[in-house]
C-alpha cells in the first residue's frame, strides 16, 4: 500500500512546498468549497425544478403532435439499437472492458436517476428504461456473435447510419403513408439536433469541394471558391440567417422557397462549409507535395490520387479543427431562436415567458448548458477516438 502515501507526499510537495504555497492552496480550496457548497445548496434546495419537470416534452420535441410522438420513440429505439450494434462490433469480442462497464453504468444511471429526477410519467419512464435495455442488449449480442457473421455482411454495417438518417427523416416529417408533420411543429432538442446534423453532414463534403476548388489550377474555380469563402467568413451568421429568411422568399417564386426551418438549415450548411473548407485546406497545405507527385507518377488520374492518397491524409490533419467547427455549429443553432424558430433556446424562451414559470431563468439555462455540454462532449470524444483509429502508428502517448 505505497500508492496512497506516494500520492500524499506528491501532493505535499506540489501544493505545500513553502508557507506561501500553503496559504494560496488553502485560500483556493476554501474558495472552491464555498462556491461548490453554495451551488449544490441552490441545486438541491432552492432551485425549483418544476419548470423543467412540467415541460420535458416541450424541451424534447417542441409542439410535435402528441398522437404522432410514437414515431419519435420508434426513431430513438432504432438509434439505440444501431448504437448498440456498432458499439458491440467495435469493442465487443464477448467481453466488457472497464471503460465499457463505466459507460453502461452511466447509461443505466441516466435512465433511472434521470427519469426519476425529471418526474417523468410512468409510461415514459418505462420507455426510457426499455430503450436503455435495448441498447445494452444489442451491444452484448453484437459483441458475442460478431465473429459468427461473414465479413462481407460486417462491412455493410456502417451503411446502417445513412439509411437510418433517411428513415428518421421520414419518421419525423411524415410521408410514405405517415401523416405529415410540417417543420413548423418541430421544436426543442429535436429541432436543434436535426438542424445541426443536417448542416454537419452536408457542410463536410461541401467544405472539401471548396477547399479543393481553392487550390485548383482553374482560375474560375479558384476565384469562385476564394470569393465564396471570404464572403461567408466576413459576415456574421445571424445576418446571413436573416438574409436567408428574407431573400430566399424574394428570389424563388412562391411555394418554391423551402420552409423557414429548411432555409435556416441551408444557411447553417453554407456558413459552416466555408469554415470547414479552411480547416481542410490547412490539411492539404500540410501534405508534402511529393505525395501527389508520387500518386500521379504511378499513373493515378487526379480524382483517384485525391481520393486514395491526398484526402485520407489531409482530412486526418484537418479532423480536430473540423470537429471544432462542428461543435461551434451545434452551438450556433441557438441563433435560430433569434429568427423565430423554436429550437432548444427558442423553446426555453417561450417557457420562461410563461407567467406560471416567471423568474425561473437560472434553472432553465443550467439545464440548457448541461444538454449542450453533453452533445458537444460526445462529438469531441468521438473525434478523439477517430483520430487514434486513423493514425496507423498511434503508439506514442504524447
Amino acid at each position, binding site marked *: 500500500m505505497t500508492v496512497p502515501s506516494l500520492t500524499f507526499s506528491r501532493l505535499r510537495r506540489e501544493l505545500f512546498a513553502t508557507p506561501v504555497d500553503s496559504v494560496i492552496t488553502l485560500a483556493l480550496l476554501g474558495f472552491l468549497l464555498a462556491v461548490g457548497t453554495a451551488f449544490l445548496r441552490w441545486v438541491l434546495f432552492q432551485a425549483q425544478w418544476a419548470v423543467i419537470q412540467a415541460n420535458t416534452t416541450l424541451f424534447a420535441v417542441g409542439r410535435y403532435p402528441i398522437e404522432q410522438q410514437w414515431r419519435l420513440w420508434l426513431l430513438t429505439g432504432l438509434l439505440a439499437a444501431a448504437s448498440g450494434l456498432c458499439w458491440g462490433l467495435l469493442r465487443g469480442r464477448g467481453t466488457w472492458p472497464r471503460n465499457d462497464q463505466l459507460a453502461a453504468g452511466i447509461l443505466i444511471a441516466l435512465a433511472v436517476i434521470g427519469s426519476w429526477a425529471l418526474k417523468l410519467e410512468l409510461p415514459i419512464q418505462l420507455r426510457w428504461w426499455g430503450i436503455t435495455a435495448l441498447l445494452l442488449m444489442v451491444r452484448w449480442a453484437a459483441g458475442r456473435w460478431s465473429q459468427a457473421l461473414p465479413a462481407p455482411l460486417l462491412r455493410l454495417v456502417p451503411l446502417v447510419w445513412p439509411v437510418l438518417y433517411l428513415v428518421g427523416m421520414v419518421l419525423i416529417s411524415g410521408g410514405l403513408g405517415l401523416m405529415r408533420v410540417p417543420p413548423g411543429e418541430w421544436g426543442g432538442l429535436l429541432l436543434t439536433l436535426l438542424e445541426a446534423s443536417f448542416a454537419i453532414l452536408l457542410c463536410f463534403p461541401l467544405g472539401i469541394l471548396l477547399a479543393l476548388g481553392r487550390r485548383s489550377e482553374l482560375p474560375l474555380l479558384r476565384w469562385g471558391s476564394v470569393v465564396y469563402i471570404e464572403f461567408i467568413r466576413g459576415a456574421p451568421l445571424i445576418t446571413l440567417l436573416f438574409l436567408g429568411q428574407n431573400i430566399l422568399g424574394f428570389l424563388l417564386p412562391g411555394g418554391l422557397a423551402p420552409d423557414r426551418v429548411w432555409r435556416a438549415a441551408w444557411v447553417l450548411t453554407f456558413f459552416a462549409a466555408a469554415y470547414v473548407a479552411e480547416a481542410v485546406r490547412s490539411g492539404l497545405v500540410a501534405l508534402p507535395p511529393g505525395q501527389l507527385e508520387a500518386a500521379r507518377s*504511378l*499513373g493515378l488520374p487526379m480524382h483517384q490520387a485525391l481520393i486514395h492518397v491526398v484526402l485520407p491524409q489531409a482530412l486526418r490533419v484537418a479532423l480536430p479543427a473540423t470537429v471544432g467547427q462542428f461543435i461551434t455549429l451545434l452551438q450556433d443553432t441557438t441563433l435560430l431562436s433569434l429568427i423565430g424558430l423554436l429550437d432548444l433556446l427558442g423553446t426555453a424562451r417561450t417557457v420562461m415567458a410563461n407567467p406560471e414559470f416567471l423568474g425561473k431563468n437560472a434553472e432553465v439555462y443550467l439545464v440548457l448548458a448541461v444538454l449542450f455540454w453533453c452533445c458537444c462532449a460526445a462529438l469531441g470524444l468521438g473525434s478523439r477516438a477517430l483520430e487514434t483509429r486513423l493514425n496507423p502508428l498511434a503508439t506514442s502517448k504524447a
Partner: protein
Amino acid sequence: MTSPTALPVMIEARGVEKWYPNGFQALRGVDLTVHQGEVVVIMGPSGSGKSTFIRTFNALEDFQKGSIVVDGMPLSNDVRNIDAIRREVGMVFQQFNLFPHLTVLENLTLAPTLVRQRPKREVEQQALELLERVGIHEQARKYPGQLSGGQQQRVAIARSLCMEPRIMLFDEPTSALDPEMVQEVLAVMQELARVGMTMVVVTHEVRFARQVASRVVLMAEGQVVEEAPPEQFFANPQHERSRQFLSQIN
C-alpha cells in the same frame, strides 16, 4: 551485349527548354536519346537542371520548347496522353514519397488495382514477390514509418515496379539516405539494370555510374556538357567543365 543503337528508342528528347514562372531558364535546349535496356546516369552540380530534366519525362514538370517522345508517345498537354505515359514510366524520388497511411503491401497494390484494374489477389501475389526481390518480404504488413530509410526506398522501387513499367526514372534515390543504407538501394538498382530495365538515373554515386551505366551525361547550367561511356567519362573527360566537376566530387 549488342550495340545499344540497334535497340528501339525509349526516350527521345530534342531541344527541351524550360522557364520557371519567375523567368529563370532551367533547361536550355537539352537533347537525350535512351535506347531500350540502357542505363543512363545523369550527373552534374546542383542547380544544373538534371532533376528538372528527368521530371519532364513523365510530365511532373512542363516545358516550353522542344519535344519529348516516350515509348513512342509524344508528350503533350492532353491529360489522357500524360496518364498513359505515366503508366509506362516508373519514378523513384529522393524523399521516397511512400504513402504513410497505407501498409507497405497496400502501397504496392494501390496503383495496379486502381489504374490497371487487375484483380487484387493477383496483384498482392506479385507485390509479395517484388518485396522478396528487394529483400523486405517480411515487412509487408508494416507501415512505411516503421521502416528504415533504405528499406523505404526499396519499397518505393518495388511500388514502381508493381506497375510493370517499361522505363524507370531515379531522381537522386540515395541522396536522402544514411551512408550505410546507400549500398542496399544501389544493389537493387544494379540488379534491375542486369535484367534489362531501361533506366535514367540522376545520382552522385560514381561507383554505381562506373559499374552499371551504359552512358554518363554531365549537365551544367541547363545544358548537356558531355555524354560518354563511363570508362571514357571518368578516365578521360573531354570538356573542362567535366574535369572541374569530377575534381570536385572526388
